[in-house]
């Protein structure tokens, strides 16, 4: 009996570690975001992994940079898009994920955060603790594009100010 329990434990351990390894494979493949250069391991909770028809893949730090990738590759058809689960950081299908737009936690590359959760309960818990609204992937992606202009302007303004300050010193 004891042997069975030990064997079962080993199997569970093996499955768990393989799962985690598989879930992190995309970070090995795309260690930094193509567009902003940020470390995808550091932003595993918001990272996006895109597989295009034809076999090419792309890894970004967030849905914001994934939206840029879509805008630049309109001739490619995405076969599968996955996103990091906010809590467990494993990749989940963006279409099946439960999204939260907004809330008090600062977003990645955006003023208005967009987070994905594998489980609805987790998304609801996040909303009750940090605010924001439950959304679909479609709504999150649309919001990413809508916010892109304001986010781009905000960064450009910041850089402009910094340049001005350097000139005065």
């Amino acid at each position, binding site marked *: 009996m004891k042997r069975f329990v030990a064997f079962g434990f080993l199997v569970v351990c093996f499955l768990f570690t393989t799962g985690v390894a598989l879930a992190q494979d995309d970070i090995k493949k795309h260690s930094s975001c193509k*567009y902003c250069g940020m470390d995808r391991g550091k932003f595993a909770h918001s990272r996006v992994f895109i597989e295009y028809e034809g076999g090419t893949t792309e890894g970004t730090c967030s849905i914001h940079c994934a*939206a840029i990738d879509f*805008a*630049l590759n309109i*001739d490619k058809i995405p076969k599968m898009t996955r996103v990091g689960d906010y809590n467990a950081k494993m990749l989940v299908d963006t279409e099946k994920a439960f999204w939260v737009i907004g809330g008090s936690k600062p977003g990645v590359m955006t003023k208005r955060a967009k987070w994905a959760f594998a489980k609805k309960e987790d998304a609801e818990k996040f909303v009750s603790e940090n605010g924001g609204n439950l959304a679909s992937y479609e709504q999150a992606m649309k919001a990413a594009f809508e916010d892109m202009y304001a986010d781009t302007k905000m960064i*450009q303004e910041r850089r402009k100010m910094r340049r001005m300050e350097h000139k005065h010193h």
Partner: protein
Amino acid sequence: MKRNILLLCVALLCFAGEPAAFAQDDLKGHPSCPYCGMDRKQYAHSRMLIEYAETGTTGVCSIHCAASEISVNRAKTLASMRVADYPTRNLILAEKAFWVIGGNKAGVMTQRAKWAFKEQEEAERFIKENGGRHATFHDAMKATFEDMYEDIKMIRERRKARQMKMMDLKTFPECKYCGMVRGKYAQSRALIEYDEGTAVGTCSVHCLAIDLALNTDKMPKAIMVGDYSSKKLIEAEKAFWVLGGSKAGVMSIRGKWAFEDKEGSSKYIKENGGRHTNFDEVMRASFEDMYEILR
């Protein structure tokens, strides 16, 4: 005195010519859009030119691709953004332009058009004739980002549909009868599907006629031909056909060309001669011409 007037005229001509030359210079430096690959001369009325403080300039086809450009290069400092004045095609500062969002003219890379005008009266006239609403550059850029997701989806769907209409070139790369590469003759190729499930790809209606003559026991389910302009497959029965004209036909002296719309076939006739006809007459002509080739 006369010399002074002459000098003044020459000077005025130089000044007048300079902005016009500058206005079109960007087309030489940036002939195609780096994002969608479209010819910027063809889209001279919607094109944009973005200048950075750190690096040079980038020329794009539209405000849609300009939005992609500034998103990717948000770390760079924008020195200026210019857009084409819709009626004259001259470049003007995007911030100072009078913008129109929407209207019934098809937009560039978007379902909801965004056009820029140097003169307010021109923008007003456009709205009166084509609809749409007044906007600032900020409004137009905001609308571009708002529309981008839907536009990307639309463009992808369109491209997918176009690819499907070219798939026959992979399935039947060569003409069954003459062996010619069908991709090279995409504008004249034909595809016939029979009731019993078989299909044959040919280079032209000439070889299609041969296939029909050899398979009188089979019933054609669908006959498709390449559109002369876009090269995508269209229904042969519904196509607007042109018979003859100055361009030599494929496997035939007399050209037989198919067009998806009458605008295309009329334009062809205007430029190359020939006359409008239907698929039935084209098939008859193919058999008639066949004898001439063999002779």
